[in-house]
């Protein structure tokens, strides 16, 4: 894994405009940044990222099996009691998952570490699946990258395949998001292209325009009954909305399914650590309530986790990260070293939620930037990566997207 200098395409701005990539620049800063790129060996990709991410997804599924069997655990993960059955049933019915993105810390050597799994509403799909792909094709054509250069990016094809496997041809799939957010909308559109290529009908309705009929079925903006709904809107919000009471009886299949509420939830991390302690791709993690006394004022951890805590207590005291169970783009994250807060993200929208504590594993640094690897899962397999880098130690929504290449 190296950072390579490579000329920006001279017609980058036109290309972005042409495909409607309107947020290539955000807040006056380049969000898509191709003035340099990350270069991997095939072995790094296959051995260190692809195989572990696929395995982590399988482990996450095992964790769901344990979580949905325990109302106490679901309560800890912020699932409202009235909706626990919805989540358990969705898992029992084996409702299919489409996609997710694991954020991994990886420096080119040693095992990649799972920071968190955004398995419900991951964005940056368009940049990863399409715009980065085109960058590689253009740079090979321009002679800036050797023939035979490749990219770990089978994302689009894998999503097409996924829709084909799950739905009969011509199935109508409805898509919803907050239409006025270009990042969210681009992710939904990318997904819709995949569905269309797989032979499905794709219909968009703004989230606020969805309705419910007198007999409890969800309706799109044109009043058509929704049989399958891809929503770029998190389960923790869905379950808090007025329409939550209609979900169970609506006959509507949700993508991602309801059981993703306990995957796309940082409460998954302590459960994984409990089930797979010392797995090379996991960082030690605990529910904050269980270990706060031990970390903050020399008290004892909750007896249920004491042995596991004692095995990692030293490093955890030296440096750990506190994260709300529901948060995105680094919001609400705090780094604590030797009892002092050394970094905290500014966005505190998620502070009302329960928290977890995870061992601090610094991101590597390349030319003053710290990359985080987003490993994309389609179905059950890791099918590609997208890289975001930030100057700060906490990757936030002002980070830059960087293309990557597998060396020829």
């Amino acid at each position: 894994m190296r950072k390579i200098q490579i000329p920006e395409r001279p017609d980058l701005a036109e290309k972005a405009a042409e495909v409607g990539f309107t947020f290539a620049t955000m807040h006056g800063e380049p969000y898509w940044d191709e003035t340099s790129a990350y270069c991997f060996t095939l072995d790094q990709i296959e051995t260190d990222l692809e195989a572990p991410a696929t395995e982590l997804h399988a482990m996450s599924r095992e964790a769901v099996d344990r979580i949905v069997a325990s109302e106490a655990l679901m309560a800890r993960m912020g699932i409202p009691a009235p909706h626990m059955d919805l989540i358990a049933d969705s898992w029992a019915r084996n409702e299919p998952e489409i996609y997710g993105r694991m954020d991994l810390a990886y420096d080119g050597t040693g095992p990649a570490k799972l920071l968190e799994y955004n398995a419900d509403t991951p964005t940056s799909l368009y940049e990863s699946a399409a715009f980065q792909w085109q960058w590689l094709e253009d740079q090979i054509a321009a002679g800036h990258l050797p023939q035979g250069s490749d990219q770990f990016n089978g994302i689009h094809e894998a999503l097409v395949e996924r829709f084909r496997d799950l739905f009969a041809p011509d199935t109508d799939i409805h898509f919803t998001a907050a239409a006025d957010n270009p990042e969210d909308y681009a992710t939904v559109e990318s997904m819709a292209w995949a569905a269309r290529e797989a032979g499905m009908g794709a219909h968009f309705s703004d989230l606020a325009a969805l309705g419910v009929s007198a007999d409890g079925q969800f309706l799109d903006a044109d009043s058509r009954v929704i049989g399958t709904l891809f929503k770029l809107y998190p389960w923790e919000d869905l379950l808090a909305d007025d329409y939550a009471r209609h979900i169970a009886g609506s006959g509507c299949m949700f993508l991602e399914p309801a059981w993703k509420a306990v995957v796309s939830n940082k409460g998954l991390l302590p459960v994984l650590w409990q089930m797979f302690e010392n797995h090379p791709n996991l960082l030690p993690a605990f529910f904050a309530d269980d270990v706060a006394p031990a970390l903050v004022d020399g008290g004892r951890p909750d007896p249920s986790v004491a042995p596991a805590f004692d095995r990692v207590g030293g490093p955890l005291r030296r440096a750990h990260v506190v994260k709300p169970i529901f948060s995105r783009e680094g919001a609400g994250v705090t780094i604590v070293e030797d009892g002092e807060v050394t970094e905290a993200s500014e966005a505190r929208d998620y502070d009302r939620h329960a928290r977890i504590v995870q061992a601090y594993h610094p991101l590597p640094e390349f030319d003053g930037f710290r990359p985080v690897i987003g490993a994309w899962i389609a179905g059950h397999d890791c099918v590609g990566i997208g890289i975001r880098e930030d100057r700060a130690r906490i990757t936030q929504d002002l980070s830059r997207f960087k293309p990557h290449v597998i060396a020829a």
Partner: protein
Amino acid sequence: MRKRSRTVALTLLGAAAFTVAGCREEQVDAQAFPDLASCQAAAAQGGLFTAAECNQAFAEAETLHVESAPRYDSLEVCEEQHGAGNCGSEAQQAGGSGSIFMPLLAGYLIGSMLGRATGGMAASQPMYRNAQGGFTNASGTTNFGSNAGRAQMGAQSFARPAATAGQPPMTRANAASRGGFGSSGGTRSSFGG
């Protein structure tokens, strides 16, 4: 063994992913009128419809009002959906029960499909006040800002609403609605990450 897709050509031009020939619903010209007189006045000015079409459309919308207006089991629930003062009993409006309540007819939506409305379609639709101060159709599935003006809309807006006459009236629990998703996102402008 290539690690990348063979081809990916995605464009993000507005709704490109969602509008495709043969998939997009047929659009029809439509116009809303608060009452028959305003339709007649527009016809005299050479509008979308003739005076005869106005009469026919209004008769049809009024029939649909009697057959398909939303029916509620109390005045309270009806006013929650349509606003205070915008409801009356079925007995007053459609010669039915005094303990079933319906919104008052507040306008007429006429589509330029007069004469070819068949089977499941109606050339015109009754309009009702909604709780937000705008207007809605009989099935409560489309909302309009006003009960006057022209627009292009999907032909689906002219689907015949399901009959409600003789059906059990809606209770508060099953009154049809819209907009019940999205509020919990609070002030966040983005839901993904």
